[in-house]
């Protein structure tokens, strides 16, 4: 599996994501700068966490309009796998690659803690290493992680199994406790929790490694 990690000005989990990909694949991912207009030949593109362009407008809004995102959208349209974590999830919703939006946490404060999640859909290339219903632990660290969408969209997500992860104890007010969603084609996943920070027991947990291993298996 060949992976690329995009870096925007203000990305700060790009290295962590690259490390997680490298650990799962044994290959150093390609790093892609936001100003580039083309992606290298890869199987999966990671959009990392951080504060792209400072997130001074809406979180992810500027990054969604950057040159590289046009290439990412084209890549996704052709079935390429795209993984957006935290700010990356925000970017993907702003870019229209995933439904819904992420707004300020219900408690108004930044939330950094380990949370329990329920795996809702194990029939995706990102989640096949789990069984639906599995309980996993990952850290969250965000200020704008409150997932919102209109009722029609939410109903569609639920009906089609697009909800990938749900919080056991909703930390940010997300609609239906949604922590991560896929697109209809299941090749784009966005989630607020950080699997790349949970790839070894020494870090407090290794559940995140399952996601990266799932990708490797799906692309083998």
């Amino acid at each position: 599996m060949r992976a690329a990690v995009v870096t925007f000005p203000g990305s700060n989990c790009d290295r962590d994501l690259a490390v997680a990909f490298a650990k799962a694949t044994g290959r150093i991912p390609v790093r892609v700068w936001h100003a580039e207009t083309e992606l290298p030949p890869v199987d999966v593109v990671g959009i990392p966490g951080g504060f792209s362009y400072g997130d001074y407008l809406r979180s992810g809004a500027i990054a969604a309009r950057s040159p590289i995102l046009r290439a990412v959208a084209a890549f996704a349209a052709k079935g390429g796998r795209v993984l957006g974590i935290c700010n990356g999830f925000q970017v993907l919703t702003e870019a229209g690659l995933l439904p819904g939006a992420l707004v300020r946490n219900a408690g108004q404060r930044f939330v950094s803690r380990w949370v329990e999640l329920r795996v809702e859909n194990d029939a995706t290339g990102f989640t096949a290493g789990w069984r639906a219903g599995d309980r996993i632990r990952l850290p969250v660290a965000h200020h704008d992680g409150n997932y919102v969408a209109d009722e029609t969209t939410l109903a569609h997500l639920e009906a089609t199994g697009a909800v990938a992860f749900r919080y056991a104890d909703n930390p940010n007010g997300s609609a239906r406790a949604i922590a991560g969603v896929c697109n209809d084609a299941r090749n784009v996943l966005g989630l607020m929790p950080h699997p790349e920070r949970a790839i070894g027991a020494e870090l407090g947990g290794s559940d995140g490694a399952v996601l990266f291993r799932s990708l490797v298996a799906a692309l083998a």
Partner: protein
Amino acid sequence: MTEVSIAVAEDHGLSAEEFERIQTILGRMPNLLELGIFSVMWSEHCSYKSSKRHLAKLPTEAPWVVCGPGENAGVVDIGDGQVAIFKMESHNHPSFIEPYQGAATGVGGIMRDVFTMGARPVAMLNALRFGSPSHPKTRHLVAGVVAGIGGYGNCVGVPTVGGEIGFHGSFDGNILVNAMCVGVAQADRVFYAAAAGIGNPVVYVGAKTGRDGIHGATMASAEFSDTTEAKRPTVQVGDPFKEKLLLEACLELMAGDAIVAIQDMGAAGLTSSSFEMASRGGTGIELDLDQVPARETGMTPYELMLSESQERMLLVLREGAEADAEAIFSKWELDAAVIGRVTGSGRMVLRFDGTVVGDVPIAPVAGASPVYDRPAEPMPPVLAVAPELVREPVGTVAALERLIASPELCSRRWAYEQYDSTVMADTLAGPGGDAAVVRVHGTAKALALTVDCTPRYVQVDPVRGGAQAVCEAWRNLTAVGAMPLAITNCLNFGNPERPRTMGQLTGAIQGMAKACRGLDFPVVSGNVSLYNETDGRAVQPTPGIGGVGLLDDWSRRIEVGIVEPGLQLVMIGDAPGWLGASLYLRVVCGREEGMPPPVDVSVERRNGDFVRGLMDEGLVRACHDVGDGGLLVALVEMALAGGCGFTTTEPADVATGAAWWFGEDQARYVVAVAEEAVADLLHEASASGVLARPIGHTGGDQIVVEPHGRVAIDRLRALSEGWFPAYMSGLDRQTS
């Protein structure tokens, strides 16, 4: 330009003597720009004029120290060609006036001190002191400071992994916000701030210069009064996104050979950065102020030189490297400009609009600022509190519950859950334990990090309190299995023109020096914040210690939590039962009195080395130092962290129950070991001259304190977790 007079000089915080001295140095009357430069460079904040001669008494050397105080941050060797670079700094005055921005820019400033030396910041810690919870401003200040620290550090993407928070009425009018940054660099890629190479370009990079923060350093060098609110414009506004860009751009440029010297623009902005670089290099600098990127039009040379706009760096580049630097800065969308040249004149020559607007010699401004030997008066002696004379108002378990639920000892989760502690994916132990443990990326090593001080001890006996702060930091690092390496300090005191305050400062330094020497734990960087005083009321003296230790193998780190039943709990160290200045006395008995516990550095060292030896033998399953609140609080913290209960029994030979359970005797640890290891442990202890005593065993979901009673862990957890969120939501009156 305003006519300079003694009145104008006094408005700048300069004394009549200092004003005379400036005229002697220049051989003429300074103009307003030059006066402004002298005033910030000679401010207490920048010149350390009251503390300098005393700071010289601190030990700063050890074989592993690469660079001690005097540079932007301290540098210690951590093996394999790597160094740790760290410093702690205060941002007290601005944070009281504007808590969010004050705290945020404090975080930004200390990060720049570390990455300006070539290190990637890998961890942040903070030490906060607020006024009494019942003071009307406290809640607002806590909310703003915590959000500001998180808002800045989270955005830059450096984990905030530890810290401490205290409350006391002496901080009602002056809070303390101390931030520590730790970075890692290659030993052969450390950058210093000595301007060299005549003709080399002086380059400005980062945010544009605005009118914010002018005279921030001067503000931080005076007491507050009821007109403090009017000082809001002296507080700077932070832009963590810009900081992130600056960080990445600087580290990218540092990978090449373009940089001769680099210095961040902190307090006193362009003035202090340019003067300090020239002073360290023994050179001169000529600046063309028209070239400084300005945020507003019509800025005067005075404003350009004194602005404390954030996220700016000053560099001296190798001649010819300008284009390489420009390419990197424009990639990161940063403003950069060549604004001057290094000269051999030993003078700072400032041009604006085609004419020379300032011309002053470097050495007398930067290196030879006034040094004062202010009169110091010791604190009046205080009697020890005999344990037998402490009436126990409630039983042991009820006292424990009160302590665990108190503002001083309750869980800080409300605060640290606003800090991203897991970014960079190397945090092995985050907030809430003894020391934080952060892996050195891609290696088997880890750094152990802690910040410590017990102001109530320093208040009563500055020498003892200063020594205790150093010992506690050393102990916290030891408790996680690290070898303590060095400290940074942040000395927060009142007005040094008062002899009693000077006595506290000199006493604390004396105590710190003794402890540092005895523990081989030198000071490699630091900061002094004086004038933490409002209308004559000073803060409790708070010489904060930031300690750094090294674990060669992170997989051997020791955790604070007890997770398994059937282990024996052994206390290392002696416990005569010292209740003076204890939290028990303050929280449970409502008495703030008595001498703090004695500190014996040689015992501290012997006990700590013994504990580390046990860890090396692989005997220790959990370890915690005994500090605030005493033995029973330490045991409960271990139970809360790991989720396993314990049974402990009061020995027959103790002074009083309260003294045994809540005394704050120093140099103590609790270790959890397997039952079969106890005999060997006790034997080794007695052979090493260390007191060790079995005090109980782990198991169950209760905390059983024989013969006093029991309490469920869940109840204690609820008490511990309850206070902070309830207080912050305004419900504290119902819980206290």
